[in-house]
C-alpha cells in the first residue's frame, strides 16, 4: 500500500528560482539561503520518495481571474513550467502520477472535499522553486509529482483548519492506494511577507517562529489561526502559510522535526523550511 513517510515545508520565493537558473547560488545574498538547503538535498537523496504530493498556489499563471478554484488537483500526465512574464524557467517538465491523482480525486470527493480536477495545467514558481531547493538542477526531476493548487490570491483563502482537514483526507486517500509507494508531502509558500502597497517588506520573525512551533507540535491549535491574524501579523501575502496545514494534515499527529531553516530576506520574503518525518 502507499504511505506518507515525510513532509517538507518550504517557501517558494520566485527570486530563488532566478538565482538557481542564473547560477547565482553562492554569493553573499543567496549563498546562506542555498546552504540552508544543503542538508535537505542530502536528506531527500536518502529519503527517495516515489511520489511527491505538492501543495502550492498558482500566482495567476494557470488560473487568471476567469476561474479561481479554491482547491485544484492536478490529474495530468505532465505539467509544463509556465511563462510568468520573463520566459519559462529552464527546468525539467514535471511528470505526474495519473493513477494516484485519479484515486485521490475520487477519494476526496467521496470524503466530501469537492475539489476541481485539472487535466491540463501549467505550473509556476510556486511548484518549481521548492523542487529546485530540494533537488538542485537535475536533468529530470527524480520522481513524479501530484500537484494541488490552493487559492490564496483572492481573499478569502480556505481557512487553516479546512486545509488541515483536507490534508487528513488526502492522507486517507494515499493510505488506500494499492501500490507500494512512499509519498513525501510538500506544503509551500510563506513565510511572513507583504508584496504590495506601502507596507510591502513586512517581516515578522517572532510570529514565523511561533507559527512553525505550533505547526509541528500543536497543529490542532495552530490550524485555528484566523485570517485577520495572518493578514495583520504575517503580511497580506503571508496568508499563503495556510497551505503548510494541508501538508501537516497528511502527517501523523506526532512528527519528528528533522530540519529547520529560517532566513531573512529573499527578495521581499522570509524563507522558512521544515523537514518532518512520521513517527
Amino acid at each position, binding site marked *: 500500500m502507499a504511505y506518507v513517510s515525510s513532509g517538507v515545508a518550504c517557501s517558494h520565493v520566485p527570486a530563488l528560482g532566478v538565482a538557481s537558473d542564473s547560477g547565482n547560488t553562492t554569493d553573499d545574498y543567496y549563498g546562506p539561503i542555498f546552504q540552508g538547503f544543503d542538508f535537505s538535498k542530502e536528506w531527500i537523496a536518502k529519503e527517495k520518495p516515489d511520489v511527491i504530493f505538492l501543495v502550492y498556489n498558482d500566482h495567476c499563471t494557470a488560473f487568471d*481571474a476567469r476561474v479561481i478554484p479554491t482547491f485544484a488537483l492536478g490529474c495530468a500526465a505532465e505539467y509544463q513550467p509556465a511563462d510568468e512574464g520573463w520566459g519559462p524557467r529552464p527546468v525539467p517538465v514535471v511528470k505526474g502520477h495519473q493513477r494516484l491523482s485519479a484515486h485521490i480525486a475520487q477519494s476526496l470527493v467521496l470524503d466530501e472535499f469537492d475539489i476541481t480536477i485539472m487535466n491540463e495545467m501549467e505550473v509556476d514558481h510556486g511548484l518549481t522553486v521548492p523542487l529546485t531547493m530540494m533537488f538542485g538542477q537535475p536533468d529530470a526531476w527524480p520522481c513524479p509529482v501530484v500537484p494541488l493548487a490552493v487559492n490564496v490570491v483572492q481573499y478569502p483563502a480556505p481557512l487553516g483548519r479546512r486545509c488541515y482537514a483536507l490534508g487528513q483526507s488526502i492522507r486517507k486517500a494515499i493510505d488506500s492506494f494499492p501500490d507500494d509507494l512512499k509519498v513525501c508531502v510538500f506544503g509551500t509558500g510563506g513565510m511572513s511577507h507583504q508584496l504590495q502597497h506601502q507596507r510591502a517588506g513586512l517581516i515578522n520573525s517572532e510570529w514565523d517562529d511561533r507559527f512553525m512551533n505550533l505547526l509541528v507540535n500543536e497543529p490542532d491549535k495552530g490550524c485555528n489561526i484566523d485570517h485577520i491574524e495572518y*493578514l495583520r501579523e504575517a503580511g497580506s501575502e503571508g496568508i499563503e502559510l495556510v497551505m503548510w496545514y494541508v501538508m501537516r494534515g497528511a502527517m501523523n499527529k506526532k512528527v519528528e522535526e528533522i530540519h529547520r531553516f529560517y532566513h531573512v530576506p529573499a527578495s*521581499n520574503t522570509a524563507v522558512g523550511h521544515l523537514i518532518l518525518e512520521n513517527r
Partner: protein
Amino acid sequence: MTESKPYDDIPGTVVFDSDQAARGYHLNQFCISLRLQPNRDAFKADPETYIDQYPMSAEQREAALNQQWNRMLELGGNIYYTAKLAAYHGINFQELAGLMTGMGSTSYRKMMVDGGRSIDGNRYKSEWQDK
C-alpha cells in the same frame, strides 16, 4: 453602503477580496495578458489600442498606462497581476516594492537585508497617523 471589514484597519495594505476582484476584473485581465510574448509585442506596438480591448474604467486605464502601482491596487488590481505589467517594463518584485513604498530600490533592499519592515508600529492604521 460600504460594509466595514476587519482588515480595513491594516495600514498600507489593500486586501484583494471579492469586491476588489469584481472591481478590478478587466484591469487584472489586461495585466495578466502580458504574461505571454505575443501580447507583450502587441502592447508594445500600440499600447492604447491594445489596452482598449479590456473594458476597464478610465481611472484604471490611466493608472495602468502611467504605471501608478498603488493606484492600480486601490482600483481593484492585485499584486500578482500588476507584477506582470511590471515585468513587461522590466521591473521585478523587489523593484516594484521599492516603487510602491516610495523608498526606492536601494533603501528598500537595504531595509530587507536588515531584517525587513518591523511589525511594530505597522499593525494598525492608527499607528501610522503620527507619521
